[in-house]
């Protein structure tokens, strides 16, 4: 007997005789496959005891074929009875799909059971071909297992929220395996996740905390670069808000649930969701992806500085950095806000009611800061006025048909200087701020000078034209009189 040990031969023979002895007591409806294999105590039959399919009355033959009513092994596992042995490769998913993609077949087990898993997974990132060739990358049993399949809500299920991270990590934390499919994809998601708030809660047994499936989906997982993906930048806020925007779901957690609402109205939200500007940050750009966690007070400038590098750098060198840290103020957020951040305007600076400086720098308590804010505010106003004046003069000159290309070009410098003032203000250093303002004032002065000169030139041309017309008219009259005189003389000569 090739391939069978002596011990196995004895076991099979024992089972055969036992079955033969108890044949008269065996029920016709009883799953004879399971009866026999249970006696063998093989792993599949042990696992299948608790399998959701067995509990629903599905015999081994449901997947493996054969005649489960026959206690004759030869007959039960014969080709005539449709026995197909152990399915392999795509056969596995095809066997599952035979029932799970058939609404009629699934209806008796629950009216709301989905039947689109097979088509979803074929269209997902996992639906591609395996490196082995000829079969799909994953099969149903890759995640759900076989024989011991239980409901997702069952804590023993490998896809239960508390287990799914480990299940996904089975492949995604395996560098050697992942390299064969997507070498650029990180393999540290599980480690990062375990450091996140979500990961910590999940590890402590909180099944409500987000895990892989919560954000990426189950069967329908797509690449993050795919615009249909739930983690595509423009879809991320909505994905996060599935939980974070649900006040009932989040009731037991002491955090607000209006982030999506405030973010949508913010300058970032309008850019990302309104203009589809992918450079604008979504939730994960500030909070992290797998390691999602609220930024610490002292690190907010670093988070914002990922994009607003100059502002963050200037701020970190400014006297405000130490003061904010000491007072426990969240850096950028103190003046600009967080989720509902709006486009910064010049009105933020100064000592008016709309300004943020005066919230800390009261005239009597902090006169130096108060004076600085007032001074910078007046410089901003002056530069704005100078820009408006220059623009008006250039427009006037252009409307008069004058060439003011240089002034138009330098007008950009004024505008640029105004933008720079909004950055340099984060240094809160009078000398550095004044240098930028001076650059803007110099450009504005050039623009106004050039435009004024062009307008003066416009009137000079008209005066010049008037003078030249007078001269030409005099010359024309003189010429006309000369012609008359010559012709009169010619007539006189003819008559004489």
């Amino acid at each position, binding site marked *: 007997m090739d391939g069978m040990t002596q011990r196995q031969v004895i076991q099979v023979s024992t089972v055969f005789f036992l079955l033969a002895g108890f044949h008269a007591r065996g029920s016709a409806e009883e799953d004879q496959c399971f009866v026999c294999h249970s006696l063998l105590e093989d792993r599949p039959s042990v696992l299948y005891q608790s399998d959701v399919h067995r509990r629903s009355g599905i015999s081994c033959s449901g997947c493996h074929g054969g005649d489960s009513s026959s206690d004759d092994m030869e007959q039960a596992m014969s080709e005539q009875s449709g026995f197909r042995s152990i399915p392999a490769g795509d056969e596995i998913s095809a066997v599952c799909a035979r029932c799970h993609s058939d609404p009629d077949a699934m209806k008796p087990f629950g009216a709301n059971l989905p039947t689109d898993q097979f088509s979803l997974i074929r269209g997902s990132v996992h639906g591609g071909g395996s490196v082995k060739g000829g079969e799909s990358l994953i099969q149903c049993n890759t995640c759900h297992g076989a024989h011991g399949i239980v409901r997702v809500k069952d804590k023993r299920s490998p896809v239960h929220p508390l287990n799914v991270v480990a299940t996904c990590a089975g492949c995604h934390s395996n560098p050697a395996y992942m390299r064969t499919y997507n070498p650029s994809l990180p393999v540290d998601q599980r480690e990062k996740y375990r450091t996140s708030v979500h990961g910590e809660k999940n590890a402590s047994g909180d099944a409500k905390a987000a895990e892989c499936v919560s954000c990426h989906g189950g069967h329908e997982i797509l690449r993050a670069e795919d615009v249909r993906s739930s983690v595509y930048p423009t879809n991320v806020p909505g994905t996060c808000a599935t939980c974070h925007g649900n006040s009932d779901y989040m009731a037991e957690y002491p955090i607000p649930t209006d982030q999506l609402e405030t973010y949508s109205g913010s300058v970032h939200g309008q850019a990302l969701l309104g203009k589809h500007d992918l450079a604008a940050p979504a939730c994960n750009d500030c909070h992290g992806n797998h390691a999602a966690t609220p930024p610490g007070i002292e690190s907010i400038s670093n988070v914002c500085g990922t994009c607003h590098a100059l502002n963050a750098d200037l701020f970190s060198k400014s006297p405000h950095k130490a003061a904010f840290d000491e007072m426990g103020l969240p850096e950028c957020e103190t003046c600009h806000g967080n989720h509902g951040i709006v486009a910064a305007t010049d009105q933020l600076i100064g000592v008016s009611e709309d300004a943020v400086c005066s919230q800390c720098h009261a005239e009597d308590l902090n006169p130096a800061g108060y004076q600085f804010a007032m001074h910078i505010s007046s410089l901003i106003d002056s530069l704005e006025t100078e820009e408006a004046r220059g623009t008006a003069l250039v427009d006037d000159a252009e409307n008069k048909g004058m*060439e003011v*290309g240089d002034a138009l070009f330098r007008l950009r410098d004024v505008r640029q200087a105004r933008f720079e003032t909004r950055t340099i203000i984060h240094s809160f250093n009078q000398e550095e701020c004044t240098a930028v303002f001076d650059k803007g004032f110099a450009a504005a002065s050039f623009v106004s000078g050039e435009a004024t000169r*062009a307008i003066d030139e416009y009137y000079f*041309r008209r005066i010049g034209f008037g003078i030249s*017309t007078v001269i*030409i008219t005099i010359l024309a009259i003189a010429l006309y009189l000369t*012609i008359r005189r*010559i012709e009169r003389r010619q007539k006189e000569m003819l008559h004489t």
Partner: protein
Amino acid sequence: MTGGQPSPSTPKKDGSIWFRAYTWIDERVQLRTLVDFLGKKYVPVHSHSIWYYFGGVSLFLFIIQVLTGILLLLYYKGSEELAFESIQFIMSKVEFGWLIRSIHSWAANLFILAAMIHMFSVFFERAYRKPREITWVTGMLMFFLALGFGFSGYLLPWNELAFFATKVGTDIAGALPLIGEPLLVFLRSGEDVTGATLTRFFGFHVAVFPGIFSVLLGIHLILVQRQGMSEPFGEEGEYGKGKKTMPFFPNFLLRDLLLWLLVLNLIALLAVFFPWELGEKADPLASAPAGIKPEWYFMFMFQTLKYIPAHIGPFEGEQLGVLFFSAAGALWLIIPFLDRKSKIGQKSRLLTYAGIFIVLYIILFTIIGWMA
């Protein structure tokens, strides 16, 4: 004034500086011969004499073009990177540069207008009839060159409108059968309008065209002087037999000068009140702006091509259109040899009606094109 007028006198024989200068030149180049020739030259006076002045006005405008063109050359840089900026510099930084450029641009348009009027007046008067066929041909060749001056000069500022107008214009030339493709490549110095096209057009504009034009102009003027002014049908006759004439020098020449002064003032007015705009610098990667139009003197042809269906039988409509205008231009060039009636002293009504139709057609389609 009747015939037999005294010839213009040479400077008085005294010791004045003018007389001494005249004598000095005369001793070397026989100036007296030329003076005597001019003294005997008369211009017919009749109801159509006004048309004689448009030749002179065209000449005056050409002289302005040459002078202002030379001044622009002092600052213009004919390259893709610098052409626009150099014109901008001329317009804003060079003393009176704006005036020179505006005069050059306005005078160019007035030159073509004056030449057109001159051409049609000659046509309707049949002044091209024997013995002035060569004068007509040289004049027509100069007119075609003037269009070439206009087309090549339009691109030189390298602005957006000029760039795309040149693209469209050379595309049309490229539609010609057989020679279209090589002609397009020759004009553009490649497949597309690029900096190489600008350099080529600059060369045409300031060297090739002026050289050929000067030779033609010389022949044209010598012929006009040798053959005198043509007279309308029925008014031919010999001087001194009751026919009204005036001496070319100084009477006609001074009248010419008077008109030139008025034209000069008109150009100054246009240059000051309607300075020639520069627009935006050409960006070959940008899409063509809406409403690209050629200069007004190409407008009637451009507009006609727009009305021609894409396909006429087995031929492409645009090809047929370009061929038609080329053939019409060639016929117009040799009209003195085709008009047999004028050779026997008769005026062909058919040609007159054809001429009126052409003028009305040009005016109408130019207006439609301008308003479109």
